[in-house]
C-alpha cells in the first residue's frame, strides 16, 4: 500500500458565495509527499479551499491541478482523493471492515482482493481485531483511525484532513497527530490538512499556510512562520508576540537599526519580507533584569510588572510599558540560570532581547 506521490497545485483559486469572496485568488504549490496545513481563524476560507480540492465545492474561478492534470471539472467520485472528516463520517450501518471496503467496492475490486487490502489497512492502524464491530462501538480515536484506513485503502493521490482531531481530547489528539503523520510519511501521500490549532499545524505539517479573509498571509515551514512572521496577524495567530512600533534609521551589516517610539534603539535582523514599522519579539526570547539606569538601552525597554503567573513549565510576566502598551515575558522554570524569583507587581524591570530574536514586520 504505497501511493505514487503526486503533487498538487492551486492556481488562482477563487470562490464567492453570493457576492462575498470566501477564497480570493489562492495560488499554491504542494510537492509530492508533502504535508501542508491550512491554518487560520474560522471563516478564513481554509475549509472552502480544501473542499474545492476535494471537488465538494465548485470554484468560481481558478483551477486545481493534481500531478499537472486539471481536475477542476472532474466530479468528486472520480478524483481518487481520501478525506478525513471532523466527525469521522463513518457509515453507522456498516461494520468497520465494510466501511474500509466501501471505496474498493466502488472501484469494483475483486472480493478476495478487497478482503486482503482491508485487512492490511486495518492492521496499519492497529484495528484489525475490531473489523466486525460497528463504528458506534468504538472510541473517537478508534473511529478516526478507521476513517484513516478507509481513506488510504483506496490508494488516493491525495489525503485531505478537515480538522480531523478537533473532537478528541488533548492527550489523545497528540497521540493521533503522531500516528497520522507517521502513516502519511510511510505511505508518501501528499496531504493537505485544515486546522485552526496552531500547535497541531506546527507538529504535523511540513509547511504551514496561514490564511485570513480568503487570502494567503504567509506560506513557510513551521519554523519560518513562527520565527519570521510576515505581519502582525501571523505573529499574533501563531503563539503570542510582543509588538513595538518604531522607524528605521538605516542598515548596519545584516541588521536594520530602528528608533523605537517608546525611546531607545533596536537592532533587528532584516526580515525575509518587506518589513514594516513593527518589531515582533516572542515572549520566550525576552530576558528581564531590574531596571537600574533610566538611560535608553539598545534592544531593551523598561516597564512595570503588572502580573506574575506561574504556569508550570514557565512563569508569565506581564509588563506595562511607559507608553501604556503591554509586554509579555515567558521565563522558563527549567532553566536555573534565569532568575524568576522576586518579581512583584510594581517592580521596575528592563526587558531585553537579542537582535536575532526580533523581526521587522508589517502592521497588518
Amino acid at each position, binding site marked *: 500500500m504505497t501511493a505514487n506521490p503526486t503533487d498538487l497545485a492551486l492556481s488562482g483559486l477563487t470562490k464567492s458565495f453570493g457576492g462575498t469572496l470566501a477564497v480570493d485568488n489562492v495560488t499554491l504549490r504542494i510537492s509530492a509527499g508533502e504535508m501542508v496545513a491550512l491554518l487560520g481563524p474560522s471563516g478564513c476560507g481554509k475549509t472552502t479551499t480544501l473542499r474545492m480540492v476535494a471537488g465538494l465545492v465548485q470554484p468560481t474561478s481558478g483551477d486545481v491541478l493534481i500531478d499537472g492534470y486539471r481536475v477542476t471539472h472532474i466530479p468528486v467520485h472520480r478524483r481518487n482523493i481520501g478525506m478525513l*472528516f471532523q466527525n469521522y*463520517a463513518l457509515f453507522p450501518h456498516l461494520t468497520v471492515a465494510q466501511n474500509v471496503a466501501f471505496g474498493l467496492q*466502488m472501484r469494483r475490486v475483486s472480493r478476495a482482493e478487497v478482503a486482503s487490502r482491508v485487512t492490511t489497512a486495518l492492521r496499519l492502524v492497529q484495528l484489525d481485531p475490531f473489523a466486525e464491530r460497528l463504528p458506534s462501538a468504538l472510541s473517537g480515536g478508534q473511529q478516526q483511525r478507521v476513517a484513516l484506513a478507509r481513506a488510504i485503502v483506496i490508494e488516493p493521490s491525495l489525503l485531505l484532513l478537515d480538522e480531523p482531531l478537533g473532537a478528541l481530547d488533548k492527550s489523545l489528539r497528540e497521540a493521533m497527530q503522531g500516528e497520522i503523520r507517521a502513516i502519511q510519511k510511510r505511505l508518501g501521500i501528499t496531504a493537505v490538512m485544515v486546522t485552526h490549532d496552531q500547535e497541531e499545524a506546527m507538529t504535523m505539517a511540513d509547511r504551514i499556510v496561514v490564511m485570513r479573509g480568503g487570502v494567503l498571509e504567509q506560506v513557510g515551514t513551521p519554523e519560518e512562520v513562527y520565527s519570521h512572521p510576515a505581519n502582525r496577524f501571523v505573529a499574533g495567530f501563531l503563539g503570542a508576540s510582543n509588538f513595538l512600533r518604531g522607524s528605521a534609521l538605516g542598515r548596519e551589516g545584516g541588521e536594520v537599526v530602528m528608533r523605537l517610539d517608546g525611546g531607545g534603539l533596536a537592532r533587528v535582523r532584516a526580515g525575509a519580507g518587506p518589513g514594516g514599522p513593527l518589531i515582533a519579539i516572542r515572549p520566550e526570547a525576552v530576558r528581564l533584569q531590574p531596571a537600574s539606569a533610566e538611560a535608553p538601552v539598545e534592544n531593551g525597554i523598561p516597564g512595570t510588572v503588572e502580573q506574575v503567573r506561574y504556569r508550570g513549565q514557565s512563569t508569565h510576566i506581564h509588563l506595562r510599558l511607559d507608553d501604556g502598551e503591554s509586554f509579555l515575558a515567558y521565563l522558563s522554570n527549567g532553566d536555573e540560570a534565569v532568575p524568576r524569583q522576586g518579581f512583584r507587581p510594581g517592580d521596575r524591570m528592563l526587558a531585553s532581547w537579542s537582535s536575532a530574536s526580533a523581526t521587522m514586520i508589517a502592521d497588518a
Partner: protein
Amino acid sequence: MMASGSSATLDAPVAARPIRLPRWSVGLFLLLPAVAFLVVFLVIPSLTLLSYSVLTQSAAGDVGLPFSVSGYGRLLLTPAYQRVTVLTLKIALLTSLFTALLAYPLAMVIAYGHSALSRLTMMLVVAPLVVSVVVRTYGWQLLLGSGPNGVVNWALGLFGLGQVSLQILYTEWAVVVASVHVFLPLMVLPIATSLSRISPSLNEAARMLGASAFRAFLRVTLPLSVPGLAVGLTIVFSLTAASYVTPQMLGGPRGLMLGILLEQQVTTVFDWPMGSAIATLMVVIALGAHIGVTWMLNRRRAAVPAAQGEA
C-alpha cells in the same frame, strides 16, 4: 413548597400538614380523564364489536349467544369475499410502494434543499390534507372520467391520441391514484425527518470514496433512512387498507374494498356479526403491517451483530 421552609416551622405553631400523595399517584390522576374517555368510547365499543363477531344474530336482529365463527368463515372462505380482501391488500400495497417512490425526491428536497424551496415543497406536499376528502375525490372524478368528460382523456385527445380512452375511473387504479395523492404527506414527512438526521458528511464521504451520486444514495442515504420509510409504509398501508370514501366514490364495482363491504353488511344487510368480522380483519391487517415492518427493522438490526460470530 411550604415543607422546604424548615426553619420557619420552628417558631410557628404546628399547622395542619397538607395531605401528601405518593408521587406515582399524581401521574395516575393526570392520566385519568384521557384513560376514562378512551375506555368508554374506544375500548368498550371495540370489545363489543369484537364480541359481536363471534356471536350469532337472531331473526329479530338481536345479537347474542351461541358463539359462532360463521362470519369469519364466510369472510375468509367465500371466493367473492376473498377477492375483496386480496384487492384491499393489493391496493394498499401498490399505494404504499408508489407513495414511497414519489416521496423520496420530495423528502430530499425538503431535507436538503434551500430553505425557501424546502418550505414551498413542504406546503405543496401537505396541501391535500387541508382539502376535504369529498372535494378531493370529486376532483379526481373530473380528472379521471372516461371519454371526453375526463380531463386526462381530453388532454390525451389534444395530443392527437384522439380515440384512445383510458378507463381509470371506477377501477382499482383510480383508488390507488387518489390514495397516493392524499397519503403522500404521511410518507414524505417521516422520510424527510429521517433524511435530515443523516449527517451530510456521510454522503460526501461516500462520494469521495468513489460512489456516484446514485450509488451513494443506494448504499448510504437509503439504508439510513429506512426507519422513516418504515413509519411511512406502515401508516400509508394501514390507512389505504381501511379507506372507505375513496373506493366508494372512485372504485366502482371493480374497486370494492373491505371498508365498503363493511358498510354494506352493517347498513344494508344488517348482518352485525359479519360486519364485526370484517372490522376485526381490518384491524388485524393494520396491526399486521405494523408488526411486520417492526419485525423487519429488528431483523436488520440483529443482522450486524450476527455477522460478528462468523469472524
